[in-house]
Structure formats: structure tokens, C-alpha cells
């Protein structure tokens, strides 16, 4: 029923309605004519004039005034059924009708105009509100452009909207309605609006619309839309910059505390190495003496420590930058632990290591190298704090069908409840730095790695023991390891 809403058709119908109203009114008055005096009838004829003007505007109002005058004249004044006018009084009624219709229509027109303006403004406000709600919280230029294009389409009945930014990003083009006829690629946009803020123009909005020109109010609204969009983009960029600044600041702080902590850690093994080497070179120890052997062992151990430290530093920086992506594979936990103990055999020789990983523990989806680092750090921590000749236990149990619980426990001293949660923080150390070497990095690296694997890590005091617990998922993307049946 598209044609119903065409302006010409609507105007035409208004006149038809006017004629119908006057006709109906005349009919009613005709029926009751015996009970009514002419003056009253003339008075009553003001009603259709009022009604028509009120409902359909000035032109139908004037038409109804003329019609009312004519029908009044034709049906109700002597001589009946003629349009002859005998009395100047009757002319007067015509003039009154006309004046009423003009005055009323003017009054109503003003009224309607202001109502229409208010409605339009309300609509604009709603649209703007919707736009700003949709834009709120968007952090990505592309998303903002997309929303802006969509909203412009909805609000302005455009056929196509293309929004582009001057700095690089691909233009967001949005075909608005499910068009049967594809839009001509070479057609120039009907209207171009700048996308700008106080800092300058960011880009532009290109619109294609069949109706062509935009009215003043539409233009005003579109300008508000584009400035909203531009502001959203600017805000998103500012937030991004601010985040970057925060990250930089944090990593700066990290670097400072890292340097403080690490310089001590790096220097002490270097001191050992340097001292050993220089005494070996000086010729003060024989080639075959036990002292020489001791010095050499020291050098080797200290280089291993340095290597482990560098590994932790690298992991720490990967954790900090979010670049610690575990390369998961199905791995055997006992293999990992075995490998670590083999590498650390010099560090652990003063303690008794008890490994209890039952054969039924299935392969777990973990990054071998990273888990190696976790065990190395937990074991070296245990070795550092637990007195010599005590036992270090490494156990693994299935907690349920989803999680594996691994414990590394030692007979070392307890940690106060307040410190239990904090020992996994960066650079947090329970004992004074001079007493026991360490960067305060090892446990925080463990935490980063375990959490990247989807597990949890915590420490607890148990009677006579101190326990590190961590969990690991036994499924990988919801799948259990597949083991082929022996043929």
C-alpha cells in the first residue's frame, strides 16, 4: 500500500474527507430542520468547518467553509434549493465561516507545527541516545565505524553508507536495506560529511540515498551523529594510549625491581666463577688436587644457576607481556620430573628425593619446557629452604576426572599464613635477601605458567612439612588422551 502514503494521494483524501463530513452534517441537519431555527443551523455549520480545519489543515478548512455556506444556502435558506442569496445576513455567515476556518487553521497549524517539531526533536534525541549507548564502551575503531554506519542507515533511510578514516583503516561500507537492485559501484555519494573533532578531521562519512537532498534538521542530526562517532573514535584512541602508558609504567617499575634483585643474583655466581677461574690460572692449585676438582664443580654449578636464572627472567618477561603461550602436547609427568631430577642431580644431592607418580596417571596436555621450569623452580626452592638430609616428596594424584593434583613438599620451615598467598608474587621473599639466594622470581614464574595451563597453584603448611600444590587439567579442549589398543 505504498501509494497510500504518497503526499498527493494524502492531500486528495483530505479533500474527500472534508466533502464527506460536510455532506454528512448537512444530512443530519436536514433531518432535524423542523426543530431548528436558521440561526441555530448557521451556528451549527461552524462545526464541520472547525472539524475539517482541525483534522486536515487550512485548505480543507476553506473548502468546508465554502461548502457549508453553499449547502446552508441551498438547503436551509429561502428560496430552498437555489443558491440565490437574498439577505446580506447570509453573506455574513459565509464570511464568518471563512474567518473561523482561517483563524482556527492558523492556530492549529502553529500548534501542530510545534508538536511536529517537538516530536522530531524527541526522535532525534532518542536516535542520538541510542547511538551514544551503542558507541559507549567500544574500543575498536572498526567496531565504532560499523555501529555509526548502521545507525546512520537506520535513521536516515540511506541506501548505503561508507565511513572511512584518513589514517589507514579500511573503509566500513554498509549496505542498509536488502536492496533488490545492487547499487552502482561508480555512483558518487549523494552527501559527504566530515568526521572531525577539535583536533582535526579524522575521516568522512559518505551517504547514498534515493531521496537526494537532506533537510536542515536531518543535516543537523547527521552532523551530531558524525561528531559523536568522531568523539567515540578519539576516546577509544585516548584510552588505548593511556593503557599503553600504564603498561609502560608498570614494566618500568618491574625493570627497576628486577635490576635490583637480579644484579645481586647475577653477581654472586659470577663472583664464584671469577674467583675459581683466577685461582686455577694462578697455578696455586695443582692440576690433580682435590681443590681443583672442587673449584671446577663450583664453576659448573654456578653456570647452571645463571642459566636457570636467565630462563626465569625470560619466562617472567613472557608472562608480563602475555606472550607465554603453552605449546601443549600430551606429556608424561614422570618423564618431565625424571628429566628435571637428572638435570638437577648436583643441586639435589644433599636431599633425598621421593617421587610417587603412579603409572595410572595418564599423559597430561602441557608444555614440556614450561613444566620443566615449574618443577625446577619448586624443587630448587625446596632445596634452598629445607635442611639437608631431609626428604623432598613429589607426588601426583588424580583429583577428579578433570584435574590432576601435583604436590612438591619438603620438610622445611613453615611460612606464616599471611605470607602463604604472597610468596607467588613477583620479588616477594620471605627471608631477608642476604640469607638465602634467590630473585623472588621462581615461584611467580610457576604461578604464571600453571595459570597459563588452566591450573591453580598454592602453598600450605602441613604437620612437619611445607607443601606446594598445583593442579593441571587432564583434558585438552575437552578431550582425553587416546591410547591405541594393541593389535
Amino acid at each position: 500500500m505504498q501509494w497510500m502514503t504518497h503526499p498527493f494521494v494524502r492531500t486528495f483524501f483530505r479533500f474527500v474527507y472534508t466533502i464527506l463530513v460536510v455532506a454528512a452534517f448537512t444530512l443530519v441537519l436536514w433531518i432535524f430542520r423542523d426543530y431548528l431555527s436558521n440561526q441555530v443551523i448557521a451556528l451549527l455549520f461552524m462545526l464541520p468547518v472547525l472539524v475539517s480545519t482541525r483534522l486536515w489543515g487550512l485548505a480543507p478548512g476553506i473548502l468546508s467553509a465554502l461548502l457549508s455556506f453553499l449547502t446552508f444556502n441551498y438547503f436551509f435558506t429561502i428560496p430552498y434549493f437555489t443558491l440565490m442569496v437574498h439577505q446580506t445576513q447570509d453573506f455574513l455567515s459565509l464570511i464568518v465561516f471563512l474567518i473561523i476556518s482561517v483563524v482556527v487553521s492558523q492556530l492549529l497549524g502553529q500548534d501542530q507545527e510545534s508538536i511536529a517539531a517537538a516530536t522530531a526533536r524527541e526522535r532525534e534525541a532518542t536516535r542520538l541516545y541510542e547511538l551514544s549507548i551503542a558507541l559507549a564502551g567500544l574500543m575498536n575503531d572498526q567496531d565504532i565505524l560499523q555501529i555509526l554506519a548502521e545507525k546512520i542507515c537506520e535513521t536516515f533511510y540511506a541506501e548505503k553508507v561508507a565511513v572511512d578514516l584518513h589514517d589507514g583503516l579500511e573503509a566500513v561500507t554498509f549496505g542498509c536495506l536488502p536492496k533488490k537492485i545492487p547499487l552502482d559501484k561508480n555512483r558518487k555519494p549523494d552527501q559527504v560529511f566530515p568526521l572531525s573533532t577539535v583536533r582535526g578531521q579524522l575521516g568522512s562519512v559518505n551517504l547514498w540515498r534515493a531521496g537526494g537532498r537532506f533537510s536542515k534538521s536531518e543535516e543537523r542530526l547527521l552532523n551530531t551523529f558524525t561528531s559523536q562517532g568522531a568523539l567515540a573514535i578519539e576516546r577509544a584512541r585516548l584510552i588505548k594510549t593511556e593503557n599503553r602508558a600504564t603498561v609502560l609504567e608498570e614494566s618500568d617499575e618491574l625493570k627497576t625491581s628486577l635490576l635490583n634483585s637480579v644484579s645481586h643474583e647475577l653477581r654472586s655466581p659470577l663472583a664464584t666463577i671469577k674467583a675459581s677461574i683466577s685461582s686455577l690460572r694462578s697455578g696455586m692449585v695443582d692440576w690433580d688436587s682435590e681443590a681443583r676438582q672442587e673449584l671446577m664443580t663450583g664453576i659448573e654449578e654456578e653456570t647452571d644457576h645463571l642459566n636457570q636464572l636467565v630462563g626465569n627472567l625470560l619466562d617472567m618477561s613472557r608472562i608480563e607481556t602475555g606472550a607465554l603461550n603453552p605449546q601443549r602436547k600430551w606429556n608424561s609427568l614422570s618423564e618431565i620430573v625424571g628429566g628435571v631430577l637428572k638435570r638437577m642431580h648436583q643441586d639435589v644431592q644433599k636431599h633425598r628425593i621421593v617421587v610417587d607418580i603412579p603409572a595410572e596417571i595418564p599423559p597430561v596436555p602441557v608444555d614440556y619446557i614450561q613444566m620443566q621450569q615449574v618443577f625446577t623452580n619448586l624443587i630448587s626452592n625446596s632445596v634452598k629452604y629445607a635442611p639437608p638430609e631431609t626428604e623432598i616428596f613429589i607426588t601426583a594424584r588424580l583429583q577428579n576426572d578433570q584435574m590432576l593434583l601435583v604436590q612438591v613438599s619438603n620438610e622445611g620451615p613453615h611460612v606464616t599464613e599471611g605470607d602463604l598467598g604472597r610468596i607467588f608474587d613477583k620479588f616477594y621473599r620471605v627471608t631477608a635477601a642476604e640469607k638465602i639466594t634467590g630473585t623472588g622470581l621462581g615461584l611467580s614464574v610457576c604461578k604464571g605458567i600453571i595459570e597459563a595451563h588452566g591450573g591453580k597453584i598454592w602453598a600450605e603448611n602441613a604437620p612437619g612439612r611445607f607443601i606446594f600444590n598445583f593442579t593441571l587439567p587432564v583434558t585438552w579442549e575437552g578431550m582425553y588422551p587416546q591410547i591405541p589398543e594393541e593389535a
Partner: protein
Amino acid sequence: MQPHILVIDDEPQIQRALRTILTARQFKVSVASRGNEGLTMAAAQPPDVIILDLSLPDMDGFAVCEQLRQWTQAPIIVLSVRDSERDKVHALDKGADDYLTKPFGIEELLARVRVALKHSAQAMGTPHTIINAGPIMIDLPGHIVTREGVEIKLTATEFKLLAYLAANADRVLTHQAILTHVWGSADADHTEYLRVYVGQLRKKLEDNPDQSKYLLTEPGVGYRFLTND
């Protein structure tokens, strides 16, 4: 005749250390600091073993590996600070025979060099059919495995796996290579098969399966069957 080792590494300290140590161990050593130089030297005077760094000033170590493999089968041992499994597997895929991360123990490097030399010698002659590793004896054609003279029962898959590792004794084999050989290329990603079967083999062959001496894990890369001879 002294075996000839070509070292391609741009760090002067490593060059000096390797030259000193290897010369002392009766190897003939030549050193190249750049990839192209290394390729030229390898062509001019074919080495018995190549020790290759992955980070070179002029070209990528993987590319050097690939180019060397186009015309020489000389064993390549990669020596690098890069310790991610991806780099290791990539180097092995490009034709490297072994991979050692810096810092490394010199005995470890020498052991790898000996293995490499043995294999290049073996490639010329007939392959071994009976492999000994400590108390373990593997008779490849006879499908027999014994430990201290006592026969050990292995399932078909277990034997296939052990035989493949033993036939390539002392060399690192990637997970993918082993899985492809034993289970077929469709199962090349199922490292869990390997974990389970290697675990079973260790239980049957090793004194202490938790600290195996013969079936060694190469972290993140694969396995190596060590014969210690």
C-alpha cells in the same frame, strides 16, 4: 686421519672455546663466522661433522641447514641459544641430525660428535642388526630383546617402536618421525601414544623407569636411544 669438524658460529668466544677444545681432542677444526662463508668452506673441504649456530649475521641457520642438505649428507649438529621446541623440531626437519642448546656441557657435545661420526661411517657400510646398550641386546632381524641374557616379551607395537629407536641409536628422533614410522602418518600428532608406549618400554627395560638411562627424552622434541658405546 683426523676427523674434520666445521664450526659455523659468529660468536668469537664460542669459536675460540670450540677450536681449543676440539683441537685438543684431536679433531681438525675450521671455523666460519657467516653462513655463506660456511657453505663455501663446506664445499671446498668437505667436513665430517658440521656444528651450526642458528643465529648468523648474514643468513638464517635453518637456511644454511637446508642448503647443505642439497648436496651433502655430512652430519649437522645445531648449537643454539634458542630452546623452544619449535626451533628444535624445525632444525631437525630441515635436515639437522642433532640439537644442543647453549649453554652446553662439552662432554655432551663430544658425545654427540662421536655419534654423528659413527653414523656417517655406518651409512657407508652395512647397518648394524644387533644393538647393545648396557645389559640390553636387541636383535633386529630376529625380533628378540634380552636384558642380561633374559628374553623380554614385547608387544608388536612396543617392538616396532624400540626397533626404530635402536636402528637410529644415539640420534634424536622427533615425535613426528617416530609416530609416523610406528603408527602411520595419520597418527603423527598423537604424542600421547608415545608417552604411554615409551613408559611401558622403560618399565620393561630400565632399572629405574623414572630415571631412564637408555630411552632418553629430548624435551619437547622427541626421543633418543642411548647405547653408550
